[in-house]
């Protein structure tokens, strides 16, 4: 009796499991940056997912937030083991690595199969960044940034600077920095510590078209003369800076407590400054980064991307990627976070365009230099970044004259690329 009951129970369980398998959802793994998987951002992502699942019965999207390093290492390891997430975010700058390991599918056929109206929504330059050669496309550009310059108005006013007109050129900016330092405050963070801040400064003095690498000849495109001008800026700024990098929490603390005048960075620090303005009366604004000449501007730009993995889920993964990057979703995303993105049509939405941070970001992107072009053409070795920041720091520390430093830097960059 007991044995037959057990047999019946096992059979029933087997049937129910088989039945469940037959109707189980097609599950897509969707990896996003950790800050997109918390708070209001997560709620909106979940709303997108819910809408997509309703429109596509039988599909289930599982969202997972990851830190920058976890995203990349997880995608690399996933590609090696055949468990790469179906849809995922990452940065343009690591695109080549992801292509190398086979984590990114060529979505060109799917892209071309979309209506022209959809394709026209996106920023043409951003799309170009995802398309390294004809009939090849590895990503849809997603959120992005153009660097802006945050100004602490209290510090500037205390230094006797008229804050109504932001500095238009490097010279005007430098003069203001000197005044700030004379008033006992820090002018800027140490711009030599992070590759992106070196790039940002180069964009002020250098030839923006030459900030990059020729992967075919394995040589840097950077020329000695503009690099020497850039290094000279680091030398000039050395006595005026805070010693903290642009990414350090300490830099934000200095700015919030009226010890630091300028912070050149992306829009992601604005929520902290906005909160400080409400809570502790921080007086600040943001303007375009000054250029070498009036009318031009410095700073960097880049995009986060949405990629689709090759494999059996590619078609539905592409459909989901196209859904979340479409104008309606991107406009909602921009409104919620006040963050610029690559959907140009969404950026022109009147409600979005009226947001001050987005308005400034759209303007900044027009002038900014790409952080690490050309994308998807080759992996930038770590020694390239290190050589750049090391020389910038060494010049700022007084160990090199600008001309000598630029010459040696270019030799170091080429040596690194030749390896």
């Amino acid at each position: 009796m007991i044995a037959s009951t057990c047999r019946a129970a096992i059979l029933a369980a087997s049937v129910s499991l088989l039945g469940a398998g037959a109707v189980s959802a097609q599950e897509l793994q969707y990896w996003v940056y950790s800050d997109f998987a918390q708070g209001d951002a997560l709620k909106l992502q979940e709303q997108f997912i819910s809408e997509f699942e309703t429109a596509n019965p039988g599909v289930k999207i599982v969202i997972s937030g990851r830190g920058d390093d976890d995203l990349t290492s997880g995608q690399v390891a996933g590609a090696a083991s055949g468990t790469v997430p179906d849809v995922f975010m990452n940065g343009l700058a690591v695109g080549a690595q992801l292509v190398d390991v086979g984590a990114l599918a060529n979505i060109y056929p799917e892209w071309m199969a979309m209506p022209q109206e959809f394709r026209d929504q996106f920023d043409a330059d951003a799309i170009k960044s995802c398309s390294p050669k004809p009939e090849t496309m590895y990503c849809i550009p997603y959120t992005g940034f153009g660097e802006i310059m945050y100004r602490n108005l209290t510090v500037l006013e205390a230094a006797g600077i008229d804050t109504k007109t932001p500095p238009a050129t490097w010279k005007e900016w430098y003069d203001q920095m000197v005044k700030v330092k004379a008033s006992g405050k820090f002018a800027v963070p140490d711009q030599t510590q992070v590759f992106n801040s070196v790039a940002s400064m180069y964009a002020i003095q250098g030839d923006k078209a030459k900030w990059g690498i020729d992967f075919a000849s394995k040589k840097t495109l950077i020329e000695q003369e503009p690099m020497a001008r850039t290094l000279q800026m680091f030398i000039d700024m050395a006595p005026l800076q805070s010693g903290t990098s642009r990414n350090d929490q300490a830099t934000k603390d200095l700015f919030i407590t009226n010890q630091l005048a300028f912070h050149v960075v992306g829009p992601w620090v604005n929520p902290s400054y906005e909160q400080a303005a409400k809570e502790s009366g921080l007086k600040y604004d943001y303007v375009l980064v000054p250029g070498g000449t009036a009318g031009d501007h410095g700073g960097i730009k880049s995009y986060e991307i949405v990629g689709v993995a090759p494999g059996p889920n590619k078609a539905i993964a592409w459909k989901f990627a196209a859904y979340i990057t479409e104008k309606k979703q991107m406009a909602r995303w921009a409104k919620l976070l006040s963050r610029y993105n690559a959907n140009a049509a969404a950026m022109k939405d009147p409600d979005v365009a009226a947001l001050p941070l987005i308005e400034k970001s759209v303007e900044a992107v027009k002038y900014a230099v790409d952080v690490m072009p050309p994308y998807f053409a080759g992996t930038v070795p770590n020694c390239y970044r290190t050589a750049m920041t090391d020389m910038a720091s060494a010049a700022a520390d007084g160990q090199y004259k600008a001309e000598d430093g630029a010459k040696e830097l270019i030799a170091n960059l080429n040596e690194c690329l030749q390896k």
Partner: protein
Amino acid sequence: MNPTRHLPHYAMILPFAVLFAAFFLYPIVSGFYYSFHDWNAATAPRFVGLANYQSVLSSRDFARAMTNLFNYIVITVPLGIAVAFGLALLVDSFTGAWANFFRSVFFLPVVLPAFLAATIWRWMYAPNFGLVNMVLGWFGVASVNFLNDTGKMLYALIAVDIWVSAGFNMVILLAGLKNIPQDLYEAARLDGASRINQVRYITIPMLSPVLFFVITYGFISALQVFDVPWLLTGSSFTAYGGRRSALLFPVMDMMGRAFGSVHFGEATAYGFILTAIIILVTAAMFALRRWRTPK
């Protein structure tokens, strides 16, 4: 001899053996294979002979990481053990609740997750507002940029590392101290030996096996230093080691080559070079101990 007699014993070690083979032996053997190949984890490995080893050994970052490591070890290992030994003597001088209290307090940093410890210290080291600079400010010392001044970064790291590891070494040394027969101290006291002489002629010689373990373990840990400098410098796979690579260490460099540059072959070669160094250092320490041990 009946082979079936030992079957239950083999069966008992089988679960460990399987897991050990899967998670230690296989990665070691496959890693050794990949160290001779150009491999990015996705495409087929391409045999390159010793090129990966040559590439690592000739790179500037390797030289810099090794120089940093040498400077770090020669300060951290002796200083860390001296601090732990001092704490062990201190705790040993207490009895009852106070001994338990101090032992727990000094051990607390050991159980703290590394990221938390590093975050706390990042805040403490912050220029102008950090606790350390605030205290220095009371004495009229200007703000020090502990985490970005290349002349001070290594010392800032060493302070954190000693803070983290001293408790662990202290507990081991304390256990060794408890095993020293008290009559040796009583005899020394009767002979009029001072406290310092008791430590020098009784405690240290009697603790030598434990000290050997602590020193060897300290060397091996120091050679693999990674998490604290990685976190203190806010490193990522594409940018690590802090300003002018002042806190670049071999394991960080290895991780960057693997997941930043996706050169897994080179990274595994790096791992084997580091392993060889660790084996050499450990063997040298054992040889030294054997040489110094009276026959």
